[in-house]
């Protein structure tokens, strides 16, 4: 019994002593420039792109380590305000409340546009509807239109799918489509809109449910799903989303994707952000289904 207790004690002492060995780098992400470690967090729309960039960059610059996580634009910006990340990914602009919160925390968010994205509105391949106006989509999502027959489809109830409220895609859709860009409009999503936690959830439901309509970034919509051609006004041209239509601004629901840093970037973060705007990195943007931004048009 005594030997057992002594050996148990010895094991515990050993375990605690290993915890006391000097830690290599991660002593709080605020001290990022000391270690060659970049923390990148935020938008789930950008996360695949950020991961591809991080892998490519680390392959060429093995002395830098980049960690990428998702969680939504809101999460990324909140982390930037809490000073726990170096770069926050956001698929929407920072809100005024977040900006004032940052200022009161001593954080100065600087915006960088790193790519462009189109929001594709998707329906089940069996659905006969293939074009809608922006107003019709707004009415569908706010609850004014509830049956596909009202927009030229079959007599089926409309099941509205959306991303969760912490998603930048959600907020962008609310401002641009539901409220048609007007700041005074207070229209909200219909109460029975399904808020699915991931793009995969939306895609899976739209793929097998003929009543469903959903939206997501162009890079996340698989080729076998039917995208709706959208007209800005009734009587306008119906446009499908693609790199061309986003760049010449004919597709009405396109947006910039942002990375926010605390203050102007310096050191390895600046090198990384400069590399992201290079043609090599922008080629990855195109490969993943987003729209590349050229260095001189980043406004």
């Amino acid at each position, binding site marked *: 019994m005594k030997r057992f207790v002594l050996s148990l004690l010895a094991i515990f002492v050993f375990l605690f002593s290993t915890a006391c060995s000097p830690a290599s780098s991660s002593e709080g992400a605020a001290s990022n420039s000391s270690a060659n470690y970049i923390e990148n967090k935020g938008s789930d729309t950008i996360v695949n792109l950020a991961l591809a960039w991080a892998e490519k960059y680390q392959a060429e610059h093995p002395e830098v380590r980049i960690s990428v996580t998702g969680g939504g634009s809101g999460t990324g910006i909140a982390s930037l305000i809490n000073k726990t990340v170096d770069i926050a990914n956001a698929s929407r602009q920072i809100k005024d409340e977040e900006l004032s919160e940052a200022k009161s925390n001593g954080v100065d968010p600087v915006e960088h546009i790193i790519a462009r994205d189109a929001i594709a509105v998707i329906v089940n391949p069996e659905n006969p509807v293939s074009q809608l106006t922006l107003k019709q989509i707004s009415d569908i999502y706010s609850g004014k239109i509830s049956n596909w027959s009202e927009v030229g489809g079959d007599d089926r109830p409309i099941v509205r799918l959306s991303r*969760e*409220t912490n998603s930048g895609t959600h907020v962008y859709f609310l401002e641009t489509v539901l409220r048609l860009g007007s700041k005074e409009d207070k229209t909200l999503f219909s109460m029975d809109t399904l808020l699915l936690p991931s793009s995969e*959830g939306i895609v899976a439901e739209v793929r097998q449910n003929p009543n469903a309509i959903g939206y997501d970034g162009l890079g996340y919509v698989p080729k076998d799903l039917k995208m709706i051609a959208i007209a800005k006004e009734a009587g306008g041209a119906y446009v499908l989303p693609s790199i061309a239509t986003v760049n010449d601004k004919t597709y009405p629901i396109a947006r910039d994707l942002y990375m926010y840093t605390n203050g102007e970037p310096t050191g390895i973060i600046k090198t990384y952000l400069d590399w992201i705007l290079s043609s090599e990195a922008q080629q990855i943007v195109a490969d993943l289904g987003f729209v590349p931004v050229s260095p001189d048009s980043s406004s």
Partner: protein
Amino acid sequence: MEKSLNWREFVITRLVKASGYSAILFVALIFFFLVREGIPTFAETSLSSLLSIRWYPIEDHFGILPLITGSLVVTIGAGLVAVPLGLGTAVYISEIAPRWMREILKPLVELLGGLPSVVLGFLGILLLSPFLRVFLNLPTGLTALTGSLLLGGIAVPTVVSVAEDALDAVPRSYREGAWALGATRWQTIWRVTFPAARSGVLTAVMLGVGRAIGETMTVMMVTGNAPVLAVKLGSLFSPVRTMTATIAAEMGEVAGGSTHYHVLFFIGMVLFLISLGVNIAASSVVFRTKKRAERILS
């Protein structure tokens, strides 16, 4: 020799007592933390705002009623699935199944209990929800019913394990007495064994329901997360949003100290109080039953 024995006794008794009290201490600390972070809600939003029916936190709509009703609908549904199925299985395993069948069934049920809830949620999205949509002709398969069925499946192993142990613990003499008086097998089970194991069975049901109300991942994936007030019968066949899924989905994005943050902790408090209420109600019944039984036996 006597003295060292007493010293060891003393230490062990105190250690065991401390472990017992520490359980109460941890629960109290958790509740205190929830209250500390949740109480500022009342300072920042009004009670009428909290009791409204629209939950849209990014625009300051903090109506938690849809979330509460969502959790209740899914839990009641899960209970309706898990309790008959679980108790029936427990009765079968302990009373009716032959020994060889019991050796196979018990481990299999435990195995079902070990299935991660995320896996069940995944199966729910891909298999159960399309099936329900077609079978019941619903607009979408992501409903409270899907959540209830999966949660019932998750709660069943818990109910079966505990109830089966309770039924096993009933002394053989009870059953033999009933058989001697000419009771059939079913009469023995329903009127003698089951009531005798009542406290254990109630514990089993309570644990199962507690498991269901706290389940997060599965409901987040299959109930659709639409914050609709679920009070009609048809709400079972529509999407709902539970309190647990709300906390899980939104906790990541809140800035610490904001109103949204406090409201989420308030929801956690409500969840805690509901579980506490269920536990207190069940244990009061259990203790009351014991007292009466003690009086009869003595």
